């Protein structure tokens, strides 16, 4: 007999669904209540089930590898544990049918419009309070209701531009809004990276499943922000709290992806009511600021006084209407849990109909009737801080769940009466489950979904996808990433194949080329120091190798040359007793820290190369032995570090930023080279010091080829100081600095016709160009070393102030 296979039947999917058991009373994304596989999942699951075990493993690791290569991580906060973690990817996407998605999207757009109206009211006429639709204390007690923003209309007329909603599906199959993310929602960039990773894992399946693309959403929003500028001379910037923030990676990623400038509060200043960014060319206007910083930190003058993340005077620029803030300051007030108790009434008031997509049932305990209801029904509610901006399953310290306090006792009604307006209660909703892959089989896990909305000239657009949080156990309190939950891609599945589009391929559209010369001074400073630290580390490695080679040859540390070199190393802050001195490790750490400040301008490969270098050094440090072992280790490190510099110099676009990095390297090299030349060619230096100089200057081969004679003071000075063809010479580097300085914008707030650094570089260059080796006295070499030591400060004065 021959029965047609039933695609809804779980036995059709082999082991994959062999242990998939839904939880009674909880809806499941994959299976309907009769235990049949929902249609939207069938073709994807069948393909997944047919993958042999090894092929599946390979698919999953391709996705993981992508995230590692892209450097996607988030910062995890814990007691004594503040580390970067890998992005916790759950490989099985959540599939949603396009018709169902359209309903969700319509409901969320309606809610976004409502929230805009609420925002306009609470920072405007306050009719909702006057008419009794919103209790005054919810604003007055709320630290996110920013009094200085009352009565300040947003430029362009809209308060909200980029928001997110957390939604979940209840037991009856209905979607509920769990949280409004109106402050500065994170995750859109992570959603994109999650999508990229999954498309590596399941490329063909993704195409065959007709999955809606995300790039169009980002492109439209980018163009919208660009068009908010009054003209091309001002710019869009993304305001980040900096690398210590848990989602800094995403800020840098979005900035890089959209081509916007990434700034921190200290990068900006307010002049005559205009918001400006400090660039290497002076102050330049910013007309659109997409903040990833919570409002209260943005201006220490009028908001949180202790903030070091803000820009003094920022509020005065908002009052002057000189820029658009995405989203308006103070939008965090809409995130409070208690507002959900009033949204149904507000919807009726503004729209004349109930919410299309309801929010989770909420009661504010400030009202006597609601409070009595909560007391009578506490067993099916969570009771928590009314002003909490956390999701329903992310609890505060004093939460009451199902009528029980954190110590397990029944909640006292008097406690609810006493706390009253400080409390909000929410119905406990069992979130639906979605499949997660565990040891080759699918298991149902609680799930909530984050959806992003961006305002465009045509109204709100909804990102067709987003990401879902998947609990790491069956309990919905474990959904949060900070509690070990993971994240999966969301596929909105169309009935027809969808057009492939990315942000990058738009041949028929005019493309946007970023203006050169708008490098923020802080970024320039970090690039400059990155160049210096890397060069410095390389120099130290070379000297350490020379030292340990000699130890290996003679096994004696007290030979005159070894002792001489040891003194020189100590002068550089390196302890010769340590094979891998702390002074070297700290240079590499400092280079990585500088690179970390500018991840938006820095290739992932470059970052990985540097991170790998630090990791290698740290793992080598405890087990190296002096002599040959260390000399060889330095060889390994030198190869690794030249891998990094090669990447930078071969692949990095010659933006202004690259110039700063290269100038940093050149300045460091002129300084270091003139420094060791002064020492190693000194008449008092021991025998062998001249060869050491050639070695430290990495010019052994060149020397052999250029000079038929043995090493002399004249040949060393000729090669490492005066040779305009040797990239290791001081003259060569001076010429390089001069050339790069010519590409830098003229800093407009300093009067000098020729920047002091250029003047000094040219003076020294001219002197060296006409000198012969014998004319350069030991005293003059010391003088040159002292002059080059000033270059850094001169550069800072002109460009980095």
């Amino acid at each position: 007999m021959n029965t047609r296979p039933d695609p809804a039947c779980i036995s059709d999917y082999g082991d994959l669904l062999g242990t998939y058991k839904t939880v009674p009373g909880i809806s499941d994304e994959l299976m309907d209540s009769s235990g049949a596989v929902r249609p939207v999942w069938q073709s994807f699951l069948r393909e997944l089930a047919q993958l042999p075990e090894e092929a599946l493993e390979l698919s999953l690791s391709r996705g993981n590898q992508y995230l590692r290569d892209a450097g996607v991580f988030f910062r995890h906060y814990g007691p004594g544990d503040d580390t970067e973690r890998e992005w916790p990817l759950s490989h099985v996407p959540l599939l949603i049918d396009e018709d169902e998605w359209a309903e969700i999207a319509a409901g969320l757009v309606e809610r976004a419009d409502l929230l805009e109206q609420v925002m306009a009211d609470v920072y405007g006429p306050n009719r909702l309070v006057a008419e009794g639709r919103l209790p005054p204390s919810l604003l007055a007690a709320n630290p996110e209701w920013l009094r200085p923003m009352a009565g300040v209309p947003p430029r362009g007329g809209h308060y909200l531009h980029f928001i997110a909603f957390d939604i979940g599906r209840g037991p009856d199959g209905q979607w509920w809004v769990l949280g409004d993310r109106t402050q500065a929602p994170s995750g859109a960039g992570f959603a994109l990276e999650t999508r990229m990773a999954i498309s590596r894992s399941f490329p063909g399946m993704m195409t065959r499943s007709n999955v809606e693309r995300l790039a169009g959403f980002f492109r439209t929003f980018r163009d919208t922000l660009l068009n908010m500028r009054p003209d091309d001379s001002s710019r869009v910037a993304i305001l980040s709290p900096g690398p210590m923030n848990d989602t800094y990676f995403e800020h840098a990623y979005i900035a890089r992806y959209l081509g916007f400038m990434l700034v921190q509060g200290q990068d900006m200043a307010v002049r005559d009511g205009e918001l400006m960014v400090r660039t290497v060319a002076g102050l330049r206007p910013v007309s659109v600021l997409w903040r990833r910083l919570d409002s209260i930190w943005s201006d220490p003058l009028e908001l949180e006084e202790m903030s070091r993340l803000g820009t003094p005077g920022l509020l005065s620029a908002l009052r002057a209407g000189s820029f658009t803030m995405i989203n308006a300051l103070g939008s965090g007030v809409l995130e409070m849990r208690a507002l959900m108790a009033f949204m149904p009434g507000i919807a009726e008031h503004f729209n004349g109909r109930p919410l299309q997509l309801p929010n989770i049932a909420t009661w504010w305990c400030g009202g006597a009737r609601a409070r009595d209801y909560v007391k009578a029904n506490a067993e099916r509610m969570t009771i928590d801080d009314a002003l909490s901006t956390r999701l329903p399953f992310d609890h505060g310290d004093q939460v009451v769940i199902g009528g029980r306090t954190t110590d397990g006792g029944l909640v006292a009604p008097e406690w609810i009466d006493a706390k009253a307006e400080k409390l909000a209660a929410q119905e406990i909703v069992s979130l639906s489950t979605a499949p997660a892959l565990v040891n080759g089989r699918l298991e149902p896990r609680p799930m909530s979904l984050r959806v992003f909305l961006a305002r465009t000239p045509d109204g709100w657009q909804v990102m067709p996808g987003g990401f879902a949080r998947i609990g790491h156990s069956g309990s919905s309190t474990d959904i949060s990433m900070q509690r070990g939950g993971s994240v999966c891609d969301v596929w909105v599945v169309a009935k027809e194949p969808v057009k492939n589009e990315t942000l990058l391929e738009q041949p028929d559209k005019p493309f946007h080329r970023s203006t050169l010369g708008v490098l923020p001074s802080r970024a320039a400073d970090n690039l400059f120091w990155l160049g210096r630290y890397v060069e410095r580390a390389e120099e130290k490695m070379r000297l350490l190798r020379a030292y340990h080679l000699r130890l290996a040859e003679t096994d004696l540390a007290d030979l005159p040359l070894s002792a001489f070199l040891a003194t020189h190393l100590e002068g550089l802050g390196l302890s010769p007793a340590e094979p891998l001195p702390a002074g070297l490790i700290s240079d590499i750490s400092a280079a990585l820290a500088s690179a970390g400040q500018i991840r938006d301008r820095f290739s992932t490969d470059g970052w990985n190369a540097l991170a790998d270098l630090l990791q290698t050094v740290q793992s080598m440090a405890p087990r190296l032995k002096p002599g040959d072992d260390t000399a060889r280790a330095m060889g390994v490190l030198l190869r690794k570090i030249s891998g990094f510099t090669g990447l930078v110099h071969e692949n990095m676009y010659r933006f202004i930023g690259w110039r700063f990095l290269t100038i940093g390297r050149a300045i460091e090299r002129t300084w270091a080279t003139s420094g060791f030349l002064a020492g190693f060619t000194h008449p008092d230096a021991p025998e062998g010091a001249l060869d050491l100089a050639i070695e430290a200057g990495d010019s052994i081969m060149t020397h052999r080829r250029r000079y038929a004679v043995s090493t002399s003071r004249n040949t060393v000075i000729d090669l490492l100081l005066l040779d305009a063809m040797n990239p290791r010479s001081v003259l060569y580097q001076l010429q390089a600095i001069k050339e790069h300085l010519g590409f830098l914008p003229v800093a407009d707030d300093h009067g000098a016709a020729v920047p002091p650094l250029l003047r000094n570089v040219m003076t020294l260059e001219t002197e060296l160009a006409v000198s012969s080796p014998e004319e350069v006295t030991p005293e003059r070499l010391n003088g040159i070393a002292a002059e080059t030591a000033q270059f850094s400060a001169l550069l800072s004065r002109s460009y980095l102030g």
Partner: protein
Amino acid sequence: MIYDITLRITYSYDSMADADHQILRMIPADLPGEQRVILSNLSIEPQPCERLGRQDFFGNGCVDIAFSDPVSETVFVMKSRVERQEPNNFLDESPDLAGLADELDSFQSVAGLSPHNFRFNSPRIERDTEIGDWARGLIKEGQSVLAIADAVCMAIHSEMTFDPEATTVDTPVLKSFKGRRGVCQDYTHIAISALRDLGIPAGYVSGFLRTIPPEGQPRLEGADAMHAWVMAWCGSSMGWVEFDPTNAMRAGLDHVVIARGRDYFDVAPVKGALRTAGSQTTTQAVDMIAG
């Protein structure tokens, strides 16, 4: 009563300091029915490159300024002639605490001086039960809000010792309360904290107080300082009533108001005073002459 008031505030810095933006609240307020500003003038040295007058959320006048270059000293001199009227709030029409809570429930506004803005934690005053418990020990069942506010301010006056050395402008309210020492700012913050914990909206008033020299001694010019006192919301009928816990009195003819806010944060005479690596010295002199 007409006063001629001069306020002079000087900031001196060891090293040149980046001045950037500051907000000034030092000009007496024009308050119909309470006080009238006949003329006022604020001069600033060095000349700021930006200067803009406006009203803040609470309706206080303030001046936004910015300096383009680093400064080593800034001098603010405010001169004003003000007519002050006797407040008319000595007939107690205030409810008891329960009545006040009901009135607040039906008070549907969060505009500047709405009492709701003065009920909760504010930047310098976190709700504190120790001060609240102390205040609860002072009051009697059924007492009127006005009487409670009087009692709290009298108790602060009698328990505290005026001591300019004990606290600074940044001393937390609980610390000055525990030490029972401080200046008018501390007295006022303690009063606000106590009243809020009892359920009475309370705020901070900055201004000037005419001081009468001890008998037989001449009045010293510029010997006075700026002053602070507390305002308490005594129900819809009486509205805000001002008490001076430092001097155990209601604010009256001798008090001239500059600004009102939730605590010192909202009304500081100079906000955004410069941050500098070196140390800074501030001097403040007030001269208040009855005309």
